[in-house]
């Protein structure tokens, strides 16, 4: 059957058709649509495939590994920075190996359309020494997800699928294949496999090292790595993942005169690359993300052939690729279109009108006046838009949960009061542990949790502790008289300013919970109701 799917959806459909029993994920652009597709799927509902959101990427990764331990197939999904959070179980899962097939799908965001950085997850895959699949199109995304589990089981190793924004969010026709049955429960043969005590780990690590030559062999013979010969050997081209599409766009009808290696599976196919290198005068490397292939081919001394890519700025060092950039790297004259007229103004994203975060910032700005600027640490979510005019309320946004711990560190340094503004989902993702740090030292920090009962930034997913934020703060040990709950509305402005002023003046941990649902999720719920 042919379906018209986003790259993200193709992976989800592939995983379901590949026989997963569960998908574990925390939302994050551009990966969110993978788990959402399974959550909406009738097939998944019928088969009771697990698809509920995890609290963060680390818990998702560990749950996926647990399902694999029990012999079933699982997929874990996240955006690139989510893999930083999940790095500990991710790296160690390569040492334990797996039982049921396990695929970790990571969506990178070059050009930072919706992210703090453009880190390249292929480094993480290489770091863990596991095979990586990188689809060039939606069909390969489907196939890699569907076939990836048996590959994972063949070597008892987790595998990574790495995609980037454009593939994740672009639709194309995908030919689906028959459904593979789920595994039944089976426990690992070796009772020590998952016990990473040093004595066991050393054994497991040797197995991982030993497997490297198998992974290389697989890459050499993989259908996703292809050598297309060409007569014009003045240049050989290596195109990884989606960059292959941009290359082919410049040679309609597949009429490229140069030899090409299309890369879709790592570790790199060494023999293929040796052939290209020995037959061609120069090599051009096209890769979306960091120059990881280029670096490994150049080596430290760069003694070999001339290699063009991002490092010598044949392609820009940062940002995503596109067909025009690739055309220029190939020396083609490109069209330019027309310039953007000067009267066109920028239109940055902004908080929706009526958003509760607006009322929080209006009140906070007033309460903070007596203390001066630059002491409000914040976090990641819709509320990060409070950094922009007209609010200009916050002074940091680094990684999920950092608002609370940075405020604590600054308070330790003597910045009193220091303030944190964090969303409900970010708080449960990574804020609770930091709050415990602050409580343990009764640090003079004022923490505002702007609780809109949703993971709004990524599309209004269900938040994991809706309605329980107050209990969590009390449970962590914040003094009950310093847990204050407010309703962020214009009419409550004065009350909010007053409460904030009181807590800012308190020399210890206080938490102000501003509770009002995101208006987008309210609208969505109403719409769904009328449609039913």
């Amino acid at each position, binding site marked *: 059957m042919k379906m018209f799917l986003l790259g993200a959806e193709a992976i989800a459909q592939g995983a379901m058709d590949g026989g997963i029993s569960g998908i574990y994920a925390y939302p994050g652009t551009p990966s969110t649509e993978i788990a959402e597709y399974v959550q909406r799927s009738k097939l998944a509902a019928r088969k009771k495939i697990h698809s509920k959101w995890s609290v963060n990427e680390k818990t998702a990764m560990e749950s996926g590994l647990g399902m694999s331990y029990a012999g079933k197939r699982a997929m874990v999904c996240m955006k690139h920075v989510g893999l930083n959070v999940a790095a500990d179980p991710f790296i160690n899962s390569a040492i334990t190996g797996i039982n049921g097939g396990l695929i970790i799908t990571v969506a990178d965001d070059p050009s930072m359309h919706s992210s703090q950085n453009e880190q390249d997850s292929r480094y993480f895959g290489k770091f863990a020494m596991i095979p990586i699949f990188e689809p060039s199109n939606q069909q390969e995304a489907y196939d890699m997800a569907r076939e990836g589990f048996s590959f994972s089981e063949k070597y008892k190793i987790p595998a990574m699928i790495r995609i980037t924004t454009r593939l994740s969010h*672009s639709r194309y026709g995908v030919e689906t294949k028959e459904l593979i049955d789920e595994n039944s429960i089976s426990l690992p043969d070796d009772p020590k496999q998952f016990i990473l005590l040093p004595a066991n780990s050393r054994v497991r690590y040797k197995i991982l090292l030993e497997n490297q030559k198998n992974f290389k062999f697989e890459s050499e013979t993989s259908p996703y790595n292809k050598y297309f010969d060409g007569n014009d050997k003045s240049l050989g081209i290596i195109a990884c993942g989606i960059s292959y599409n941009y290359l082919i766009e410049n040679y309609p009808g597949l009429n490229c005169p140069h030899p090409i290696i299309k890369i879709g599976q790592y570790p790199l196919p060494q023999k293929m690359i040796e052939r290209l290198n020995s037959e061609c005068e120069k090599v051009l490397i096209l890769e979306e993300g960091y120059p990881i292939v280029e670096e490994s081919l150049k080596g430290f001394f760069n003694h070999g052939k001339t290699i063009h890519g991002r490092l010598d700025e044949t392609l820009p060092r940062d940002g995503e690729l596109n067909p025009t950039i690739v055309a220029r790297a190939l020396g083609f004259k490109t069209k330019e279109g027309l310039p953007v007229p000067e009267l066109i103004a920028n239109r940055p994203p902004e908080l929706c009108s009526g958003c509760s975060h607006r009322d929080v910032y209006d009140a906070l700005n007033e309460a903070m006046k007596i203390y001066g600027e630059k002491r409000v640490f914040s976090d990641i979510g819709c509320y990060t838009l409070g950094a922009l005019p007209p609010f200009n309320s916050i002074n940091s946004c680094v990684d999920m949960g950092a608002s609370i711990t940075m405020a604590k560190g600054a308070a330790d340094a003597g910045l009193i009061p220091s303030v944190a503004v964090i969303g409900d989902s970010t708080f449960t993702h990574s804020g609770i542990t930091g709050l415990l740090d602050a409580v343990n030292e009764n640090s003079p920090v004022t923490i505002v949790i702007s609780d809109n009962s949703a993971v709004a930034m990524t599309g209004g997913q269900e938040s994991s502790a809706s309605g329980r934020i107050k209990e969590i703060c009390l449970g962590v040990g914040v003094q009950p008289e310093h847990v204050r709950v407010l309703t962020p509305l214009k009419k409550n402005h004065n009350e909010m300013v007053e409460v904030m002023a009181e807590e800012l003046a308190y020399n210890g941990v206080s938490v102000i919970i501003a509770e009002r649902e995101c208006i987008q999720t309210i609208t969505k719920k109403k719409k769904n109701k009328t449609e039913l």
Partner: protein
Amino acid sequence: MKKDIILAGVGGQGILSIAAVIGLAAIEKGLFVKQAEVHGMSQRGGAVQSHLRISSNEIASDLIPAGEADMILSVEPMESLRYLPFLSNDGWIITNSTPFVNIPNYPEMKLLLDQINSYKNVIVINADETAKKIGSLKSSNVVLLGASSEHLDIPYRNLESGIRQLFGKKGESVVQLNLAALKAGADLVSEKK
């Protein structure tokens, strides 16, 4: 046959339903369709664009190369000019004239419309006004789609069928409303001639 279309607007204005109708119509016609969407940060009232590519052959790139788009279809007048570097020399700018003003430095309307009308192939319609007349402001994006229908190289009846497929599950009255919106948009353009 090849049509590369940049869809433009402001987050929340529904450019993806335009893309979906054209996509469904093209698939029904047996054409290849590739569509790069926008999700995430930029959706909060910021500028958004989508690349929609239709071809009788397999489509390689998910993104349209610079200077090769056949059409910019914009639900907002200022946004219709943001992606000009993508437009080919004989490409069309088809845009709604109702501004979405959520920034303090939005250009003066007369200057903006003069600028739009200074390009070679332009269709400017007040899609919001027409949509209101037929009874649903929400269908203004479908009015705009109607206005572009002549330049899409996709038979009108396939577009109608796209609308039926997309809105079918919302009930027959929603389908009829959108079919009326499509027709109103197409009529606006043929009347102007």
